[in-house]
Each structure stands twice: as structure tokens, then as C-alpha cells.
């Protein structure tokens, strides 16, 4: 391959991106819309102000104090006035509240007598984000609320305040959350979405570009610009999209994520892994375009590809928890090697040594796609379709 042939194809592709409305929209307008959509979607970071119906059958100073503790929690938004748990349950069914908290009669009496008092919480587990937040908060409130009574009882038995206080929590869990200190849903989801959007945009853009060559009959021009070199076509056509991908990735890291309070620290490391991922995806898109005869067929294949690959990447459900057949299938997707690692690089600080393996795998994948696409092209002539035999070129 001569450098001139590569630069011809490269310049031609850059020109196509900026002169074809479709490609311009896919490469720049669509990511902007996605970016805005997702960065506003998770702006509240985690579940808060969850409507919880409170039913107080005890109606004592202690129960009212407990309700005040529920009220003070930013995660919960208590609404009283329920005459019975059934009434509150009916509102759960109508989606007016997500949970109910029931304090039965005799609750304060039990606490005063030093008997275990039972409070009933019921949460709509149809949404895990809401239900786990409610359960965690209600447990924490119950745990801390009884401290005063505990100390009073112990002091009546001759303990001094300090030793009674020490005895309330002889052992504690000191929870430290690495990579996502506030356990925000946005920090968990947005980095993965950034990669998913990048993947989607690059796949559609490259397939659209190759499709356009087929529909508009631009293959002859492409062929001449490349001087008949497949490598020049492959590199010249894919590199502009690699640059588009890098630009989009940087826009995500420096605009979309900071909008949600996420600031990447390992930027160089992150850029290297992301670039390897972008190269793998771009090469894969060229392979898909070569595999399918019609533009519609290649786009249909992408439709099948996007959602399962993201979910198989282990970004939400760990790879080791997948059934064996899916673990094997997931090995063939670049997102498996990129999504989790890139998220860690966005949320934390990791040395370059951690990225060597993912980069090597992603670049190998790109290389494999290059050879596979070349093989397909030789057999089918789908990108250089104007000249069925190589002998005709000479």
C-alpha cells in the first residue's frame, strides 16, 4: 500500500463526512442528542424523595419521633393520613406511593418495657432502585432510632453514659466505596452509556458510509483513489471514523460526564483504551458492511447487535454470572474488554499497566476484522463490486 493511496481515500472520506447530510447527522447531531438526553436523565444521580405512606396505629411520642426521623431522610418523602395498611397498599397498586411503613399499636410500650418492638415496612419491589433505597434507609433509621432508649435502660442498670454509648455499637461497618464514593446510579450508568453511544454511532456511521458507496455507485471512484489497494481502502475509510470516535469520546469525558459531576482522572490511559476500542468497533463495522450485500441488511445486523453486546459486556451483570454459552459468546465482542475497564478508568485512577491487556485484545480484534473483511472482499467483491476479478485491474 502506498501512503498516497491511503491519504487519497482518507481525504475523500473526511470530505464525505462533512458533505453528506446523513453522515454529518449521524456523526455529530445524533451523539449530541444522545449526550444531552443521557446527561439530563441521570442528573438526580440516585433515587430520592421516594413516596412512602406512613400508618401510625401507636400514635405515641415515640412513634411520632420515628416518623420525624423518616421525614428527615432525603431519600424518603412520607405521606401520612392513611387509616390502615390496606389503604396504603391500595395506593401502592395505584403507583401513588412506592412503600408503606406501619407502626402497630403498643409499639412504644414494648420499647419502654425493653421488649423488641416490630415495625412493618412494605416496598414495591417492581423497581429495584427504589426498593433497595427504601429498605436500606428504613433499616438504618430503626437501628439508630433505638439508641436513646438503649442508653436510658443501661443507665438505669448502673452504666455510665460513655460505656452505655460504647455498648450500643460495639462493632461497626466502616463502608468505603471505591470508584463511586456516593454510590450514585449516574456514575454506574453514564460511563457505560458513553461507550454504548460511541459503539452505536460508529457502527451506523461506517455502515452508512459503505452503503452509500454501494447505492451511489461510488465504488469505482473509491477503487481508483485507493490505487486498487484493499489496505488503503480499509485504513482510509476507517481512520476518519476513528478520529470522529476519539473526538466524541473526549466530548463525553470533558462535557457530558462533568455535567453529572463525574471527572475522569486517568485521561491519557482512558484515551488509549478508548482509542483501541474505537479502532476495534470501526474495523468490525467495515467487516459487517463487507459481509452483507445490501445496506439494509448490514443495518439490520447492527440492530441485533447493539443491546445484547452491551448487556453481555458485564457492565451490569458480571460476566462470571452469565450462563457458560453466553460467557463464550461475549468473548467475541469488543465491548466485553472495554466497557467495565473504561468505567473504572473514568471513575478511578489506574496505572497504565492495567490497560495493556485490554488494549492488546482490542487491537487484535481490529486486526482480525481487517483480515476477515479482506477475505470476504476477495470472495464477494462487495466493496469493490465494480471489478469482479483482480486481473481486470492491470
Amino acid at each position, binding site marked *: 500500500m502506498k501512503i498516497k493511496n491511503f491519504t487519497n481515500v482518507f481525504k475523500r472520506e473526511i470530505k464525505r463526512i462533512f458533505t453528506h447530510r446523513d453522515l454529518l447527522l449521524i456523526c455529530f447531531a445524533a451523539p449530541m442528542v444522545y449526550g444531552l438526553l443521557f446527561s439530563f436523565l441521570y442528573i438526580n444521580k440516585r433515587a430520592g424523595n421516594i413516596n412512602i405512606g406512613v400508618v401510625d396505629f401507636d400514635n405515641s411520642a415515640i412513634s411520632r419521633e420515628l416518623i420525624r426521623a423518616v421525614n428527615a431522610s432525603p431519600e424518603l418523602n412520607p405521606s401520612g393520613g392513611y387509616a390502615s395498611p390496606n389503604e396504603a397498599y391500595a395506593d401502592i397498586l395505584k403507583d401513588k406511593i412506592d412503600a408503606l411503613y406501619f407502626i402497630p399499636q403498643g409499639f412504644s410500650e414494648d420499647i419502654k418495657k425493653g421488649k423488641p418492638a416490630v415495625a412493618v415496612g*412494605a416496598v414495591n419491589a417492581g423497581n429495584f432502585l427504589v426498593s433497595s433505597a427504601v429498605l436500606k434507609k428504613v433499616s438504618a433509621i430503626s437501628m439508630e432510632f433505638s439508641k436513646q432508649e438503649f442508653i436510658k435502660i443501661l443507665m438505669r442498670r448502673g452504666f455510665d453514659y460513655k460505656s452505655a454509648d460504647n455498648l450500643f455499637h460495639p462493632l461497626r461497618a466502616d463502608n*468505603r466505596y471505591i470508584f463511586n464514593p456516593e454510590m450514585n446510579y449516574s456514575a454506574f450508568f453514564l460511563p457505560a452509556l458513553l461507550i454504548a453511544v460511541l459503539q452505536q454511532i460508529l457502527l451506523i456511521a461506517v455502515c452508512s458510509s459503505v452503503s452509500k458507496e454501494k447505492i451511489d455507485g461510488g465504488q469505482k471512484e473509491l477503487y481508483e483513489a485507493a490505487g486498487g489497494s484493499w489496505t488503503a481502502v480499509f485504513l482510509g475509510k476507517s481512520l476518519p471514523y476513528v478520529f470522529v470516535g476519539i473526538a466524541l469520546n473526549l466530548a463525553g469525558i470533558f462535557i457530558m460526564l462533568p455535567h453529572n459531576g463525574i471527572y475522569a482522572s486517568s485521561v491519557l490511559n482512558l484515551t488509549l483504551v478508548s482509542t483501541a476500542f474505537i479502532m476495534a468497533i470501526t474495523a468490525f463495522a467495515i467487516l459487517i458492511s463487507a459481509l452483507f450485500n445490501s*445496506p439494509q441488511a448490514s443495518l439490520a445486523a447492527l440492530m441485533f447487535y447493539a443491546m445484547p453486546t452491551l448487556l453481555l459486556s458485564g457492565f451490569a451483570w458480571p460476566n462470571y454470572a452469565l450462563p457458560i454459552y453466553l460467557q463464550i459468546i461475549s468473548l467475541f465482542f469488543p465491548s466485553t474488554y472495554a466497557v467495565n475497564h473504561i468505567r473504572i478508568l473514568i471513575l478511578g485512577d489506574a496505572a497504565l499497566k492495567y490497560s495493556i491487556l485490554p488494549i492488546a485484545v482490542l487491537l487484535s480484534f481490529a486486526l482480525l476484522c481487517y483480515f476477515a473483511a479482506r477475505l470476504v472482499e476477495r470472495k464477494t467483491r462487495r466493496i469493490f463490486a465494480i471489478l469482479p476479478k483482480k486481473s481486470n485491474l492491470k
Partner: protein
Amino acid sequence: MKSILNIAVREFRIILKSKLLLFLLLAFPAADFLLLGGIFMSGSLEELPIAVIDEDNSALSRMIIRSFDSSADMQVKYRLSNINELKDYLIRQKVVLGLYIPRDFQNNIKRQKPQSLIVFTSASNYITASIADAGANTIIATLEAGIKYQILSKKGFSHEEALALVQQIQNDNMKLFNPALNYHFYLTPGLWLSILHQLLILFGALAIAKEFDMKTVSPMYETANKSVLKVLLGKTIFYTAVSFGHFEILYRLIFPLFGIKFHHWSIAPILFGLCFCIASISLGLLLSSVLKTQANAFKGVLLISAPAFLLSGYTYPISIMPKFLAVFVQIIPLTPFLAGFKKIYHQDLGINYIYPYIVHLLILAIAFFAASYILLRFRIEKGAENEN
């Protein structure tokens, strides 16, 4: 009525001749249903890999490690010597949690000096972090209760008194509609239905776009007695019938195949599914009236339907989205459909609880259908003028 039927029959013949459309009708949903069905098959995450740094190396610290190892949620996979090593394991994603037991831990507990167990949780993955965090806190709370009980007993409290003081307020927590917090039952049906949503919009989008691509608008128009309304009705009826096949396959075959129970034979899911099909296909028809070619229709559907599941409120509640987004998501048919589907599937409720969602879907269907009628009529008339 006959012309509407003719359009539907014509659509059927076109599909039979097109490998791509057959692939989209059969292979695409089947493959995605099977792939997505397996992802959350385990239902819950068990034996999450964790690491331990035991600087105390006492009977109590070994007992704590055994408690973690014997819990269903976690498995002690590595015993490490320092925090840096743990950080390395967390970055490499070999473990989701690291437990640090400090030096003199047992002695301090014996001296009644409050102690902390440091729990490092990798929170980059919210799901694994939540499970590991809840598991670790439960184990530590149980251990704390045991320690508290022993100290109180030694201080002269009776068994009953010590027991009551260990947990003064007992929470009887109920997880309604999914007591085991099973991810498979929760997420998989929603994902399957979002695939169906994508497919329905695509059907609608290709229904018109392919006629323009193949330059068969005139014969189609003739078949419908030159009525755009009949064209749209014929195509909508045909694809709604096809989608019912998909619903049947999904509910009767795929749900049981992946062990998910769903009482789909009552009137509510059938009527609800019908409204969903019409609304989604109408959205597709509207897209194809705007986007002129099949390739554009594909791109449009890919870009529009991809974020629909995230925006639907199925996993991230609409109530915590910004106001403008909470309004915007209401124009996506998947949003009211999944909200109503949850009522039928999770809560086993009937038509009384889903009629607001039915009305919502019907409003969307009418709006999309009317808009696509106006646009398609304009395009056909403009095309006819150009020909003249």
C-alpha cells in the same frame, strides 16, 4: 374494507419475497429473545468474589472471615496482605469487596472498646456493590448483635432482656411483587418487550419506505383505491396481526422456556398488547413518512428506539427524571406499555388498573397515525404532481 384487505395481502406477498424482511420478522427477534433471556437467568448474584486482609489473625477475626465465606452472597477468594494489594485486585475486577480487619481487633472488643471493620466496596458496578454492601452490613450487624448479647449477659442482663436490647426495633420488611428480588423476573421481560417495541417501529417504518425504494407507490395506491387511509390501515392491520404472533411466541414459548410465569390469557394483556402494537407501528409509519428510504428508516429506528428502554422508567423511575424529560418520555409507546405491563405481570392486576395506560397508548396511536396520514398523503400527491 376489501381494499384494506388487499393491502394486507399485498404486504404479506412482499414479505414472502424478501429475505431481509423474513429475517427481521423471524430470526432477529428469536435471536435477541434467546440471547437476552439467558443474561439474568441466575436471578440473583451469589458468591461474589471478595478479599480479606486479616491483620488481627485471632479467633474472632477467623470467625468473621468464616461468616463472610459461608454467606450466600459472598465467597472469600483471596487473602491479601495490604491495602495496595487490595486496590490492585479491585482495579483488575478480581473482587467486588475487600474486608479489612485491623490489628488488636479481638482484644479491643474484649475491652469493650468499639471497633470498626473496614469494608472496601468497588461501587463502579451499582448492582454488585449493592448486593455485596447489603450482605456485608447484614453479617456485621449480626456479629455486632452477638457481641452485644454476650457483653450484656456478662453484665447481668437476663437472656430475654439482652435479646430485647440487641434489637429494640425489629423491621418486618416485605418486598412486594418480587420477594426474592430476582433480577431475571424483574429485568428480562422488560428487555424482551423493548426488542419487540424496536421491531414494531421498524415494521411501520419499512412498510412505507420500501414502497418508495422499490418505486411501487403507484400500484400500492391503486390497490387501496387511491386512499391513503386504506393504505395505512391495511399495513397497520397486517403488522398488528404479525406482532400478535410475536406476542404469542414470547408469552407462550419464551417466557416458560426461561422459567418466567405470566398469566397472559386474560383479556388485559391481549387488549393492552393490541394498543401497544398500533401505537408503535403508527410511530414507525410516521418515521417512514418523514425519512424517505429504507436505509434511512433503519437508521432512524436504530437511533430512536435504542434509548427507549432506559427512558421508559422501567429501571430508573420517571419521578426522579427532570420535568422536561419526564414529559418527553411519555411520547414513546414503550413508556406507558411497560408501566401497564408491570401492573399485569408483577402485580397480577386486571383491566381496572391499566386503563389509563390503554388510553395513553390510544392517544399516541391516533396522533402518530394522523400525522403519518397527513405526511404520506402530501408525499404521494407531490409525487403525482411531479410525474405529471
